[in-house]
C-alpha cells in the first residue's frame, strides 16, 4: 500500500471520493479470494514424503539441513508415510524393479499431491539408458517440476520448490465437490531455459577455473 503524509488543515489535502473508496473498500470475488487463501496455505506447507532412490537424495537431504534450511519454505515436515505427504520428490534413478513400488506409493498419497522429478535419471533416465532403468519417471507418474543436474545442487532443489509453490498459487482446484466446476486447472509449464535465455546469452565474462 502507498502512503503519503499531508497537513490536515490543508483544504487541497482532503482525499477525493474515489481515493477514499479505493483505500477503504475491497472489491473482489469471494471465490477468487477463497482459492487464493487455500492455495497460499497449501504452497507454504508442502510436506515432502521421506523417499529417496539414489545419489540425488543426498543432495536433497543436504537441502533439509542447516546451511540450506528447507524450513524457510515450510517444507521441513518430512513424512514417513505417503498418506500424510503432499509432495514426492523422485530423487534418483527410477529402477525397473522399483517402478511398481514407486507407483504404489504415489497412489497411496492423498490429493492434492505433486511430484518433483530430481536429477537426470528421474527426468529421462539420464546417463543410464540401460536394461534395468525406467527412462524417466514420467513414464509412470505425472511430474510437476523437473530439476536438471546429476545430481542437482541443493539450491536447485530449493528453486524447484519455489517454482512448485508459484505453480500451486495459480492452481484452481474445486473448493468442494459441491462448489464450482470440478477438475484441476494448472498453470502452463514454464521453461526455465527459455526464461533465462536472454540473460545467459548476455553473459560475456566467464570466470576461469584457475583461481579459487
Amino acid at each position: 500500500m502507498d502512503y503519503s503524509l499531508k497537513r490536515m488543515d490543508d483544504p487541497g489535502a482532503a482525499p477525493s471520493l474515489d481515493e477514499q473508496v479505493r483505500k477503504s473498500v475491497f472489491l473482489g470475488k469471494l471465490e477468487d479470494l477463497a482459492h487464493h487463501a487455500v492455495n497460499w496455505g497449501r504452497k507454504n506447507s508442502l510436506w515432502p514424503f521421506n523417499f529417496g532412490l539414489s545419489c540425488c537424495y543426498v543432495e536433497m537431504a543436504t537441502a533439509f539441513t542447516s546451511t540450506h534450511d528447507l524450513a524457510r519454505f515450510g517444507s521441513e515436515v518430512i513424512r514417513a508415510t505417503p498418506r500424510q505427504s503432499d509432495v514426492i520428490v523422485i530423487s534418483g534413478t527410477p529402477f525397473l524393479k522399483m517402478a511398481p513400488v514407486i507407483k504404489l506409493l504415489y497412489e497411496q498419497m492423498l490429493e492434492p499431491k505433486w511430484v518433483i522429478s530430481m536429477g537426470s535419471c528421474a527426468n529421462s533416465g539420464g546417463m543410464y539408458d540401460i536394461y534395468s532403468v525406467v527412462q524417466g519417471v514420467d513414464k509412470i507418474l505425472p511430474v510437476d517440476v523437473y530439476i536438471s543436474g546429476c545430481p542437482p545442487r541443493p539450491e536447485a532443489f530449493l528453486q524447484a520448490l519455489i517454482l512448485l509453490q508459484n505453480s500451486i498459487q495459480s492452481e484452481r482446484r474445486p473448493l468442494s465437490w459441491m462448489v464450482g466446476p470440478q477438475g484441476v486447472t494448472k498453470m502452463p509449464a514454464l521453461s526455465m531455459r527459455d526464461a533465462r535465455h536472454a540473460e545467459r546469452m548476455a553473459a560475456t565474462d566467464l570466470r576461469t577455473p584457475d583461481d579459487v
Partner: protein
Amino acid sequence: MMSSAVLQEAQPTGIVGELYARFPGEGLVEQATADGMPTLWVPAAKLLAVMKTLKRELRQPYRMLYDLTAVDERQRQHRNGLPVADFTVVYQLLSIERNADVRIKVALSGDAPCCPSVTGLWLNANWYEREVWDLFGIRFEGHPHLVRIMMPRTWDGHPLRKDHFARATEAERLVMDQARVEREQEALKIDPAEWGMREVAEDHDTMVLNLGPNHPSVHGVFRIMLQLDGEQIVQAVPDIGYHHRGAEKMGERQSWHTYIPYTDRIDYLGGVMNNLPYLMAIERMAGITVPSRAQTIRVMLCEFFRITSHLLFYGTYAQDVGSMSPVFFMFVDRQKAYDVIEAITGFRMHPAWFRIGGVAADLPNGWERLVREFLDWMPKRLKDYEKMALKNTILKRRSVGIGTYSTQDAIDWGVTGPGLRATGLAFDWRKARPYSGYEHFDFEVPTGNNGDVYDRCVVRVEEIRQSLRIIEQCLDHMPSGDYKARHPLTTPPIKDRTMQDIETLIHHFLNVSWGPVIPAGECTMTVEATKGLNSYYLTSDGGTASYRTRIRTPSFPHLQMIPYISRGLMVPDLIAIIASIDFVMADVDR
C-alpha cells in the same frame, strides 16, 4: 608382465607352484595377467578340491572369498591360448596372513553352463553365485537357493550375456499399468517358507514383517523381510536389487575414458575415490606411470571424500539411534568440505575428475588457503561431536555390545574396511599394499576391540582424523611437476605440445575422438574405499571399450551378513546395525 595373456611354461613358483605340486597332471593352467596376480585355470571337476586346499589345507590359507564373478567369453578375440570356454567363472581369494591374492578360473561351455557351488566352503558365496546366475545364467550345483537377486523375478533372460540387449530403449516400451503393477507386486510377495521362516513352536505364532524397499531407516532402496517373535528377530532376510543400474554392462559400451563418470556413481558418497581403482587398472594395462604430483592430488581428494562420507555416516548413524541434532552439524562440515572440492574439481558429489594418467586439471591458484581453512575448522568440530554423540549415554546404550562379530566371522563373510578393523584387525589396503603413493604418508590404522556397532562408529571417527593428517601432509609436501602423465594413452593428453609436433597432435585427436585403445589383458586393482575394499577387474580385448568390467564393492558382502548378526535381537537393534554398516545401495547393486 604387460599386455596379452601368455601361458607360462617355466616352473611356476609361489602359490601356483604349491597347487601344481598338490594336483599334478590334473589340467591346471597358469595365466599371466597385467596385475601379476597368480591366476590359475582349474577344471570344473577339480574346483572344490582346489578351493578346499586353498581355504583349509595350506599353511597360510586363503580364508576370504574376496570376489566371485563370471565372464561371457563368446565374443572375445584375444584369448591367446587360454582354455576353451564360453563362460568363465572367476574366483578371487584373499589371504590376510600372506597379504596375497589368488585368482581361480573355471572354463564352462554351452548355453546352460553349470559349475559346482562353493557355498559349502564360503558363507558369502551364496549371494555372489545368485548374482552370477541372475546376470549370466550359470547354474551352481549344490547352491541352497539359486534364485534371482538383482533383476525382478518376472525378468526374462540374463543381462550380462553378450547377446542380451543393453539399452532400455532397445527393449519394448515400458507400460506400468495396473495389471503390470499387480503382477510385479505379486512377485515381491514374501513366501515365508521359501526363506526358511519356519514356525518356532506348535502353539506359538510369529509375525512376518516387510521392511522396505522404501523405509526411512534402511538408507536407500533396500528391503529386509523379518520374521518376528514379538519384537525379537527370528529371521532377517535381506532382499536387494532395487538399485541395479547395470553399471557393469555399461562398461562394455562406454569408451575407457567416458566410463569414468559411471564409477563416481557406484559408491556415490565416495566421489572421485571410485575413479581411482578403475584408472589404476587401466594405467597398469597401458603401462602408464602417473607423475607424483597427480598421485598426491588424487590422494588428497580421496581423503576429502572419505571425510564427507564418514561424516554422513556419523550423522545418520546418530540419527538412527535417536539423536537428531548431530546430522545438522555434520552436514555443515560436509558443505565446508564440498566448498574445497568444488573449487578444485568444479563439482560436488560426482566430479569424475581423475583421468587416465592423472587428473583433469592442475590445482587452482589459492587452493592451499582453502585446504588450510578446512584443516583448521574440522578438529574442533570433531571434539564437539565426541561430547555430543560418542559420549552420549543413549547412543552408547543402543550400540555397545550390539551386532557383534569376530575377526574370524568378518573374514568368513568377506567383510573389509572399518567393519573389519572394528574387530581389532589392522588391515588397511593403504598400508598392506600401498597405492598412489600412500607409502609416503604417515598415518595410523585405527582399530576397535569388540566389533560391535559402537566400535564401527569409533573407528570411522578416528579415520576422519587420520584423513585430516594425510590431507595436511599433501598440503605441506605437494610435489611440483605434471598433473598428467606424458604417455600416448593419457586421455586427453596434456595439450601444451599439441600444436608443436605431429605425434602429440595425433594422439590427442585419437584419444578424444574414439578414445584410447588399451592393450588386451586383464587387471584387478583395489583401493581402500570409504566403505571397505573396492576393486575393478577389467578385461580388455584390445578395443576402445572394456570387454568386461567387474566392480567388486564392499557393501555387497556386508549386507549379506545382516541375518547372521541380527538373529535374536530387537527391531531397533537391527536399525542400529544397518546404520553401523554404512552402505549405499549403489555400492551393493551397482
